[in-house]
C-alpha cells in the first residue's frame, strides 16, 4: 500500500504534449478515477505511473520512493488492461501465477495465493482453461485476479469495463468497489465513462487535452465544477448552458439570456456583482428544471416558458428537449408531466443550483 504523487509531470510524444505539468497527490488507499474524453491524456498518465512510458519532465513517487527512472517490473504496481492482455498460451492458473513466478515466489506460496485470488473472484472452476475458451466477463475476472495475487502497492485499471456488455458492466462495477473496500489498496482507474467515475471514485480527476481540470470528490465535482468543461462533462444528460449577461435591478441581479430573465438568489448577489454587464455563461443541470405541477418546494424558483421539441420517456423520468427563442436545453422531469410535443409550457428553474461561468476564461465564478 502506498500513496502516489505526480510532481509537475509532462509527457511529450514527438510534437504532441500528452500530459502537461500534472501535479497530483493520491493518498494511500484512495480510489482515484481519471476521467476525460479520448485523447485527454488519462491513459498516458496511467502508463507513466506504470513505467510503460518515460516521463519527459517531472517526477513520480510511489509512497516515498521516486520511481521516475525505475522500470515497470520494479515499481510494484499491477495493471488491468482494457484488452485484459491474458497470455494466450497459458491457462488461467499460469496466467495468475506468472507474476509470482517471475518474482521467484516459492511454489507452495504461489499455489496458495493463486487459489485465494481465484476464490475471491469465483473463478476456481476455470483455472485450467485457456483464455480463448473464456467469456468476456471471465477474462476480466482473470485479469483482476492476476493483479490482486501480486499484492501490489497500487492497482492500475485502464478502462477495464469497456469490453463488457451493459449488464455485466454494472455488476462488475459494484464488484470492483467491493474489492477496493476489501483490499484497501490505492486504485487508479482510467475511464471515459462519467457514470463509472461518479459511482466508483473516492475522488475524480477530470482531464482535458493533457491538462488536469479538477480533482475532487464526486459530489463536489458534480455540485461545484471548477470550469465549463468539467460542468459539461460530468452529468447525464449534460448541464445546459446559456450565453447571458448579468443585469442589476436595484438590490437584485438578473441573468438575461435574451430568451428569458431569471433572478440570482440573494445570497449569491455579492459574489456575482463584479460581473455585472459582462458576458457570462449561465449553467443549470436538467435535473434542476421542474414541471411546476410536480415540483418540490424550491427556495428560489424562477419561471421560464419554452416549447417542447422532443419528449423522451426514460421510464422513471422524462427528458424534455426544449426551445426558448432559439436557445435549446434539456429538462429531466417527472414522468407524469402533461407536456406534449409542440406545446409551450411553464417550467421552474431551481436557482439555488445555478452555475455561472466567466465567458472568457470559462472558469466558475465563485
Amino acid at each position, binding site marked *: 500500500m502506498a500513496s502516489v504523487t505526480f510532481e509537475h509531470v509532462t509527457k511529450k510524444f514527438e510534437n504532441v504534449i500528452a500530459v502537461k505539468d500534472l501535479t497530483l497527490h493520491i493518498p494511500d488507499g484512495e480510489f482515484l478515477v481519471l476521467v476525460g474524453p479520448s485523447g485527454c491524456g488519462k491513459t498516458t498518465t496511467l502508463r507513466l505511473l506504470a513505467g510503460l512510458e518515460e516521463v519527459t519532465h517531472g517526477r513520480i513517487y510511489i509512497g516515498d520512493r521516486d520511481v521516475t527512472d525505475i522500470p515497470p517490473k520494479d515499481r510494484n504496481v499491477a495493471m488491468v488492461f482494457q484488452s485484459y492482455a491474458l497470455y494466450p*498460451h497459458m491457462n488461467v492458473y499460469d496466467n495468475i501465477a506468472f507474476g509470482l513466478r517471475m518474482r521467484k515466489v516459492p511454489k507452495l506460496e504461489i499455489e496458495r495465493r493463486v487459489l485465494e485470488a481465484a476464490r475471491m473472484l469465483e473463478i476456481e472452476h476455470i483455472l485450467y482453461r485457456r483464455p480463448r475458451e473464456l467469456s468476456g466477463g471471465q477474462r476480466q475476472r482473470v485479469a483482476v485476479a492476476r493483479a490482486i495475487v501480486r499484492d501490489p502497492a497500487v492497482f492500475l485499471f485502464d478502462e477495464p469495463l469497456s469490453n463488457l456488455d451493459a449488464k455485466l458492466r454494472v455488476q462488475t462495477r459494484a464488484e470492483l468497489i467491493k474489492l477496493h473496500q476489501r483490499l484497501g489498496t490505492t486504485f487508479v482507474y482510467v475511464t471515459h465513462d462519467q457514470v463509472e467515475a461518479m459511482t466508483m471514485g473516492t475522488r475524480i480527476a477530470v482531464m482535458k487535452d493533457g491538462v488536469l481540470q479538477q480533482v475532487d470528490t464526486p459530489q463536489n465535482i458534480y455540485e461545484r465544477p471548477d470550469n465549463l468543461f468539467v460542468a459539461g462533462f460530468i452529468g447525464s444528460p449534460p448541464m445546459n448552458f446559456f450565453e447571458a449577461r448579468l443585469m442589476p435591478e436595484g438590490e437584485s441581479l438578473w441573468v438575461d439570456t435574451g430568451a428569458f430573465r431569471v433572478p440570482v438568489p440573494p445570497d449569491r448577489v455579492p459574489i456575482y456583482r463584479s460581473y455585472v454587464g459582462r458576458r457570462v455563461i449561465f449553467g443549470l443541470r436538467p435535473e434542476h428544471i421542474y414541471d411546476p405541477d410536480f415540483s418540490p418546494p424550491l427556495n428560489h424558483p424562477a419561471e421560464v416558458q419554452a416549447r417542447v421539441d422532443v419528449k423522451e420517456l426514460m421510464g422513471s423520468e422524462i427528458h424534455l428537449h426544449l426551445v426558448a427563442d432559439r436557445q435549446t436545453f434539456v429538462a429531466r422531469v417527472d414522468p407524469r408531466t402533461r407536456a406534449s410535443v409542440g406545446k409551450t409550457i411553464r417550467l421552474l428553474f431551481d436557482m439555488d443550483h445555478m452555475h455561472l461561468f466567466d465567458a472568457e476564461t470559462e472558469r466558475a465564478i465563485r
Partner: protein
Amino acid sequence: MTVFNRPWATPLLTQWALTRRRLGIWIRLSLLGFSTFVVLFPFIWVLAASLKPPMELNRPSLWGFTPTATNWVEVWLRSPFARYFLNSIVVGVLTVTVSLLVGAPAAYAFSRFRTGGTWLRFLILAAQMLPPALFIIPFFLMAYYTGLLDTVWALAMAHLTFIAPLVTWFLIGFFEDVPRDLEEQAMVDGCTRWQAFLHVVLPATRPGLGAAGLFAFIMSWNEMFYALMLAGGHSKTLPVAIAGYWTFRGVELGKMSVAILSAAIPVLVASFFVQRFLIRGLGGGAIKG
C-alpha cells in the same frame, strides 16, 4: 409464406433441391479426385519407376512389371546416399536454427521499434534481389581461404544469406499480430523487455515460428546452386546427389526415383506435423480472440 401461396410447388422444389445437392456433391468430389490425381501423378510415376527392374524402365506401361527392391538397396546401402541425406539434414537444421535465432529478434525489433524504418527492412532483402551467381565466387573464395570448402558449414552459411532475411520478413507480420498490451502486461508483472519477449511474445508466436522454420528448412533442403558449388564432394546434399544420377551413360531413372522419393518424404512428414501451425499461422488471427 410461399408454402401457402403455391402449395403445389413445394414438394417438387424440395425434391429438385435434394437432387441438385447430391449432384453438387458428386461434381465437387470428382473435381477434387481429379486434382488430387493430377498432383499425385508424378509421385505415383516416380514410385513405380523406383520399383521397376532396370530393363522395364523405358516401357511406357505404369503397372505391368514385377516390383523389385534393387534400386532401393543400391541407393541406400551400396552408395553414400545415406551420408548425403544426413548432410542435407544437418545443413537444414543449422539453417533453421540460426535463421530463427537471428530472425525472431530481428523481426521483433522491426515490428516493435521500427528499427531503421522501412529502409532497413528492404536492405536486408538486398541479397535476395541479386542473382546468386553474383555471390558464388566470393563465397567460394571465402570458403576456400577459411578451409571450409566442401563442408556443411560453408553451405549453411551460404543458405543463411538468403533464408535468414526471408524468415525475418515472414516473422515481422506475426510479431505485429501480438498485441503490445501482452508484453506490457508481462513487464508490469515483473519481466524485463527481454524476458517479456522470451516468456510471452515468443510463445504467442509459436505458429509463426513453426511455419517460418519449416519454410526455411524446405528452402535449404531444395537449394541446389550453392550446394553444387560449395559442397560438391564429401559434403554433398540431396539436390546435388539426385542430379548425380544423370550420368554420361544416361539417366539412371530407377535410382534417381528412389532418391527423389527419399528427398520428398521428410518434407512431407515435417509439413504434416507443422500443418496445424501453418494453417493457424497463415490464416492469421492466431492471437486475437
